[in-house]
């Protein structure tokens, strides 16, 4: 996990009798953070809270070391956000809307730059001058994304950014996120239900349910803590392959073992134990370990198991 840029400490938020956040603890790190959880888990509430739109009933939320409620103005200057509920000045054109937002954010409102930004999020040039009120859902989402990227934010928060996009454009937008993160050092917090996508792009995951944190960390950490470890598969490239395969076959936690070409495909019940034992076994036969790679790093199965776990 990278440097921590935001933290929730035991944050509780109620709406009447409904508890939206229930002593939530989480850390937002530099890089791309995936915020996942079932419907009603409190993801959007957590996002609103981090921008100072709502006040926690208990606990405190911080971004860049600043209190989200008391210093929200300073925070909002450094964060770009795309909400799941997209709202614009519908009587303005896409370009005018973006220009207005650029002014509000104190960013450059040069038309050339703004057009470039709109093209970056794949909003067709013919749409720039059209009324936002007439935009399709996907076009609105792109405009929202462009808005979130205005003015060199340090953190961009995206609440279901790809919900209205077709698969091709979803991939493009995610590529853009990775590019901006790697090349421009922008951190992201992305809430989404499309887990395989998040799995590909995120460095850090935050899994929550019923207003509480279930797990957090890089993908492997999430998997390690998961009770559903029986589904974890590894690809191991090792020389000589037969000797190691024979040893692994006797290990109790190994569910399945296959030799395909020059690599071993191992399905294990306990990934942690596997990763501890593997170097020892390799050492025993004097083999050389070239690569260990998790294959089914299945965020979806972690999600399912964690959410359906008792008490979760």
């Amino acid at each position, binding site marked *: 996990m990278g440097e921590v840029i935001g933290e929730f400490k035991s944050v509780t938020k109620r709406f009447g009798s409904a508890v939206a956040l229930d002593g939530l603890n989480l850390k937002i790190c530099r890089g791309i953070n995936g915020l996942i959880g079932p419907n009603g888990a409190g993801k959007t509430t957590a996002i609103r809270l981090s921008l100072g739109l709502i006040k926690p009933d208990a606990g405190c939320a911080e971004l860049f070391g600043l209190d989200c409620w008391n210093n929200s*103005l300073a925070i909002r200057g450094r964060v770009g956000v795309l909400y799941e509920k997209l709202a614009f000045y519908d009587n303005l054109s896409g370009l005018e809307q973006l220009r207005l937002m650029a002014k*509000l954010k104190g960013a450059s409102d040069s038309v050339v730059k703004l057009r470039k930004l709109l093209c970056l999020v794949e909003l067709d040039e013919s749409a720039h001058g059209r009324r936002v009120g007439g935009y399709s859902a996907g076009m609105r989402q792109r405009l929202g994304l462009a808005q979130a990227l205005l003015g060199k934010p340090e953190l961009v928060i995206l609440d279901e950014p790809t919900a209205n996009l077709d698969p091709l454009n979803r991939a493009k937008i995610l590529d853009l996120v990775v590019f901006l993160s790697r090349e421009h050092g922008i951190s992201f917090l992305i809430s989404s239900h499309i887990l395989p996508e998040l799995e590909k792009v995120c460095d850090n995951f935050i899994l929550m349910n019923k207003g509480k944190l279930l797990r957090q960390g890089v993908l492997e950490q999430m998997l390690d803590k998961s009770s559903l470890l029986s589904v974890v598969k590894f690809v191991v490239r090792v020389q000589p392959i037969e000797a190691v395969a024979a040893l692994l076959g006797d290990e109790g936690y190994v569910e399945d073992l296959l030799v395909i070409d020059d690599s071993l495909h191992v399905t294990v019940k306990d990934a942690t134990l596997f990763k501890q034992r593997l170097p020892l076994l390799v050492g025993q036969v004097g083999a050389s370990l070239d690569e260990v790679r998790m294959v089914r790093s299945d965020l979806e199965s972690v999600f399912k198991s964690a959410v359906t776990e008792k008490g979760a």
Partner: protein
Amino acid sequence: MSARANLALLRAEVGKVWASPILEITVALMAVMTLMSVQPITELVRHSDFSSVFRSAVMGSVSATAASLMLPWVIMCGVLMALSFARDYESGLMQSVLSTPVSRKTFFTVKFFAVVLPLMLLSWLLTTFFVGLSFYSDLLMVLRFSLCVLPVSFLSLMFCGGLGVLVALVVKRTIPAVLTSLLANFFIWYPANIDTEWLLREGVGYVNYLCLTPHEGALVFLDRLLGIVPMGISQIEDALQFTLSTSSFAVLLIFYACVLVIPLFVYFIRRFEVCE
């Protein structure tokens, strides 16, 4: 935030609130209401040989004209303010704008004045125009009226706007907020429509206090600024309308202008939660 940004936000808000057909409806409503109160007879009376007492009574109809003119601006202010705040809250636009470095102070002020200022301008232009139609031969009087009606309409609009915001921030749903605000503003305006003079002479006690209501108060204040004392009232010695000073009415109006807006402003910047 820079003045340029504030101005851009104000322009966008005005454009949104007054987008077609709202502007057209407002102008039409105001024009219809005013036309109904134009009194051509006024001019006949003024130029005939009636006594000056009678003439001053007719002069009283300036404020009577303003009374019915007031209804559309009261209603539109309440409705548009509730619409502007509640719709933005419900649609998520408030959330979007308040996630940029726009302070809540700026946002509230801009939204409020995006409704109040154009309405003030409209009501000023239209009232002046139609009062001018009724009293065209006395241009000085029309000019004086035109000058006086500006602060009065501003103060009244602050009150109706405050009521609209209050309803919007409590109800938070566009259509219910608009209807509630419309009804609330109508009932608060209603006393301005009651013929206090006649009822006072009949000895109906509570009527004496109607001049302390926001809109009747505004009309009395307007009369005072124009130097008009309705005939009937001046004969009733203990009528508050008659005994209270002009400055008391000014203070009353300023009180009404602030009583809702200032607490709502403070509430909005300190506590209001945007969770939609």
